[in-house]
């Protein structure tokens, strides 16, 4: 299985970056959770405060949550909606942008594709390398939230938390696929990464800004339309249709990336 050789080699080179991202994410989660007790004690009515924000802002950063007094609702607003969906999603799109373009850019591709490795296998191998990467980051945050909740003596709904991380993981894999396609298309790393992050970030804004307008259908272009951390963590509702879309989009993007790369000239 040459895909796995390629995946293992690629993953090994990304270990340090992943450790850093995981550490940053754990620190963010820790700080967020540490603030929660004082947040609950303050006199401010956050529900009311958030009511006063524009609809678009709430759509982007608050999601469907209406109850902020529980740790779950608080985490959705403070952690999952913004940090997870937007920042970690953009990070994975960005990181995936160098998967193929990085090798083309530094010309090492000339040492790999002159071996009995088809370009499709090469692209699939690069994609597979990012699956454990997503899992590492996903599990690191999960562990941080569980441990953090324990430290402040708060109950957290474990099965719902797992559901958020499972679906969130699929979302991140879809972000990787966006980066992979950009990476197969562009010959330069910077261009691929720029395009990938632009798509994830741009469609996130599109989804948020068009909520409750005549252009709401445009938000369907965004991956964030297909998962709702609030629904999952606070209400415990799993959107199977959304999951199916995330998986299908990922498959289509990977196939497209392989197809695009097969047809390209490599210098």
């Amino acid at each position, binding site marked *: 299985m*040459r895909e796995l050789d390629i995946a293992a080699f690629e993953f090994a080179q990304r270990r340090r970056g992943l450790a850093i991202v995981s550490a940053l994410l754990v620190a963010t989660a820790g700080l967020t959770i540490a603030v929660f007790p004082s947040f609950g004690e303050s006199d401010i009515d956050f529900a009311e405060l958030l009511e006063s924000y524009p609809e678009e802002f709430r759509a982007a950063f608050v999601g469907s949550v209406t109850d902020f007094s529980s740790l779950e609702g608080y985490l959705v607003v403070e952690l999952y909606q913004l940090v997870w969906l937007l920042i970690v999603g953009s990070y994975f799109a960005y990181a995936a942008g160098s998967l193929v373009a990085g090798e083309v850019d530094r010309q090492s591709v000339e*040492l790999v*594709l002159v071996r*009995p*490795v088809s370009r499709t296998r090469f692209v699939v191998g690069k994609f597979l390398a990012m699956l454990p990467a997503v899992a590492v980051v996903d599990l690191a945050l999960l562990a941080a939230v569980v441990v953090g909740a324990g430290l402040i003596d708060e109950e957290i709904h474990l099965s719902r938390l797992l559901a958020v991380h499972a679906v969130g993981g699929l979302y991140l894999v879809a972000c990787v696929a966006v980066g992979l396609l950009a990476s197969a298309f562009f*010959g330069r790393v910077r261009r691929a990464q720029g395009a990938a992050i632009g798509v994830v970030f741009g469609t996130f804004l599109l989804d948020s800004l068009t909520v409750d307008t005549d252009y709401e259908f445009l938000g369907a272009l965004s991956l964030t339309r297909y998962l709702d951390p609030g629904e999952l963590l606070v209400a415990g509702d799993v959107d199977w249709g959304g999951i199916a879309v995330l998986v299908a989009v990922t498959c289509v993007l990977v196939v497209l990336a392989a197809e695009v790369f097969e047809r390209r000239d490599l*210098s």
Partner: protein
Amino acid sequence: MSVPAIDIDGLTKFYGDVRGVEELSLSVSEGELFGFLGPNGAGKSTTIRLLLGLLKPTDGTASVLGVPVDDRAAFLDVLARVGHIPGDPRFYDDVTGRKTLDYFAGLSGDARRDELLDRFPVPLDRPVRAYSRGNRQKLAIVQAFMHDPRVVVMDEPTSGLDPLVQQEFYEFLREERDRGVTVFFSTHILGEVREVCDRVAIIRDGRLVAVEDIDDLLARSGKVVTVQSPDAIDLADFDFPETIDARIEPDGSLRLVTSGNYDALVDALEGYRIDDLEVRETAIEDVFMHFYDEGDGAEDGVAAGDSAAAADEPDETEDDAEPSPADAEESANA
């Protein structure tokens, strides 16, 4: 007659409007040490990338071990028996030489790794980032040969190697050839061609100028006669059928390349006072100058005498004229 190891037929590659190579046809037999010579930018790297399936031809075909490059599935099997050294080999900076070779071994095998490392040692446990140019080149040699390929395609493989390693590498190539391995390599170093090649193709401006047997080429190329005279020399006096090339050098001396008929030469010289006279074997440089100059004269209308100065440095005349596909992509995306 067996299938040629490398068969190129009418191969053409344009990057947009810019010519990479055009109408290239040549054939290399198994077990041949074949040189591919041309100045920088002549299209050597483009040809090699076409030959390995990294680029798609605009027209024409290339086959390796009987399988056309565009038959993707079948060509993958061929690649298992092909080795390659790129023009400027780039590895993974943070990865050690050993792990780099482990990775390539997983993709295509490494039966001969140890033997090659004995011959071309590199600091295996240091990251490639810390390698000198020469060490990178040696690592490239090891990865290209370690799976015991039948055909090896190399783009200027000796650049960066010190002279001793270079000699070792030439010796190694001759041994490989004797084992039946086909070696195809590009170079702009003439001496290298004379030292190791059986045959050579000469490329210029993306077109094939000649394919010659090295020995024939040298045998046919005659002698170089240099005459210094206080008198003004008239080129017309030396226009014999055997004259390959005649020109007046900038210092007023006559430089004649001739394949014989020294009687006529002596007769022609009778009319001149002679300060100095030299007759020597043609150096391979003279032979190639002949090919390059022909092109110059035809395309630019440069008189033979005028192009002599430029001819001293054949390698520099068309530096970096080869369009890179990356540039073509830039413009395509713009």
